């Protein structure tokens, strides 16, 4: 699978959406673009022609990175890429935080942090009790790990041995006011998950090989949910956005947009 070309197209669309809509959350969408690429093109058992059929579920719990999910779903063929231009526009189709069924493939409405893992755990439990084979993948942000509800879900998932549930933390090291661990320290993060009964591992969230290897090895241990702490770079792929807090809030102007596209194409 040529993840690299797919991810470039997804990144281009993410930046284009931010540019057209004059909307942001662009850096944290770019940070998870490679994770979404590997999930949607190498891991998830899904059929864009039958979005409600038997399938693996993906929940974007960090709903503010909706542009990354929309760009990935379009690339995977869930809907035409033109729809992406209606992101955050008056009378448009795509909301700034993902809304269930606003386009085919969006499983739940997210945007308030700390909800997705509970919903995913409920889906995973229903599968287990019904002897189903579907798996549930939930993408969390690092700032989201501040939420108490997330840890309620973490306790629940291990207690119920939900080895069909996978959490991925997009650990891009930034949240609202600055560096994640300056605002509320999460470390040691993997150990916290382990102490909550999960199998925890870390990967380079921009390495297709590492992501694919880890995600294909699910469940890493029978009877335990798996979490991957994916170390990522906020704004990955656009030099002036990388590790800069303000691209949580800003959208590129014309000149910055052109530069971003050139940089992404030459990745």
């Amino acid at each position, binding site marked *: 699978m040529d993840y690299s070309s797919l991810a470039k197209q997804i990144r281009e669309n993410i930046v284009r959406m931010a540019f057209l809509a004059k909307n942001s959350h662009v850096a944290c969408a770019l940070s998870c673009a490679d994770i979404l690429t590997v999930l949607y093109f190498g891991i998830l058992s899904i059929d864009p022609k039958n979005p409600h059929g038997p399938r693996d579920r993906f929940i974007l719990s960090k709903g503010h990175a909706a542009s990354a999910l929309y760009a990935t779903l379009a690339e995977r063929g869930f809907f035409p890429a033109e729809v992406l231009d209606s992101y955050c526009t008056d009378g448009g189709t795509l909301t700034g935080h993902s*809304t*269930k069924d606003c386009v085919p493939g969006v*499983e*739940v*409405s*997210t*945007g*308030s942090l*700390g*909800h997705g*893992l*509970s*919903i*995913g*755990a*409920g*889906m*995973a*439990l*229903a*599968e287990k*009790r*019904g002897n189903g084979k579907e798996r549930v993948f939930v993408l969390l942000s690092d700032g989201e790990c501040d939420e*108490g*509800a997330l840890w*309620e*879900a973490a*306790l*629940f998932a291990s*207690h119920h041995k939900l080895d069909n549930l996978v959490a991925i933390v997009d650990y891009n090291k930034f949240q609202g006011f600055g560096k994640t661990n300056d605002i509320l320290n999460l470390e040691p993060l993997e150990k916290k998950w382990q102490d909550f009964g999960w199998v925890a591992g870390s990967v380079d969230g921009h390495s297709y090989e590492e992501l694919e290897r880890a995600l294909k090895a699910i469940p890493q241990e029978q009877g335990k949910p798996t979490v991957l702490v994916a170390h990522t770079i906020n704004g990955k792929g656009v030099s002036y956005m990388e590790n800069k807090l303000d691209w949580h809030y800003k959208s590129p102007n014309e000149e910055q947009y052109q530069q971003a596209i050139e940089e992404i194409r030459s990745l």
Partner: protein
Amino acid sequence: MRKAFCDSLLEAAEKEESVMLITNDLGFSVLEPFEQKFPKRFLNVGVAEQNMIGVAAGVAHSAKKVFVYSIVPFVTMRCFEQIRNDVCSANLPVVLVGVGGGLSYGTAGLTHHSLNDIAIMRSLPNMEVFCPGDPAETQAIMAYLSTSQKPAYLRIGKGNDPIVHEKKPDFAPGKAILLRDGSDISIFATGNILWNAREAAKILGQAGLSVCLFSMPSVKPIDKEAIHKAARETKAIFSIEEHSIIGGLGGAVAETLAEYKDAKPLFARIGFPDSFCKEIGSQEYLRQAYGLSPEAMAERIQRHIKESL
């Protein structure tokens, strides 16, 4: 009402395989029969209410009909955003069952009182709100809920609510139930204070007033037709509930009346004042202290009529 709920739920689960029950570690000595009979359809999530609602939503996504059982504040307020985002916005078949409506947990203190729940649940799109007035209404509502595919809030009393209906009431969402016909004033009552409302109506009747009394187990949808008709045909309307006077049944009736052009009867809300409960005591004691006994309510209604009509 708790027993009526549990019996009805068992019946529903026997008929319908998709029925599942979730609790946050509450319901000791009440939920065991369900747990024993349907172990794979029972789930105690522990004392974690936000997760409870998220899990309920996730399970409901898989074509399950989910009942979530807890004491009112913990299944409405503690997890309000999960109810709004995860259940209501997705329009999932999740029924929130709140035990201890109003002052049922009187001595337990304000953390366990439920005086704002109807208001917040009523404000949620897709949500239906049902407050049975006795065990018979609870059973009738459960017959509807066991097959409904919408989100709903069922606010029940506790273990010792008196029976008002001698025969099975005719329940439908959005329909008032006529308990007593009359031509002078109309009373709309909801929830576990129904018995007191009926006794108040009796007192008023003995005092020479012709009183029309409706039970309103369905607060949302509300029976606008019944309220409009009462506005046209009687001179005064009163709402009665064991809930804050803000936003509950009184709010719903007030909204309906304010937008009705054809008649403007006298209207007053009888309920709990806009305050926290300052007294300590049983439900019965607190009802006396806050003017919610049959005698006190009848007196308030008579005073209103005397002052304004």
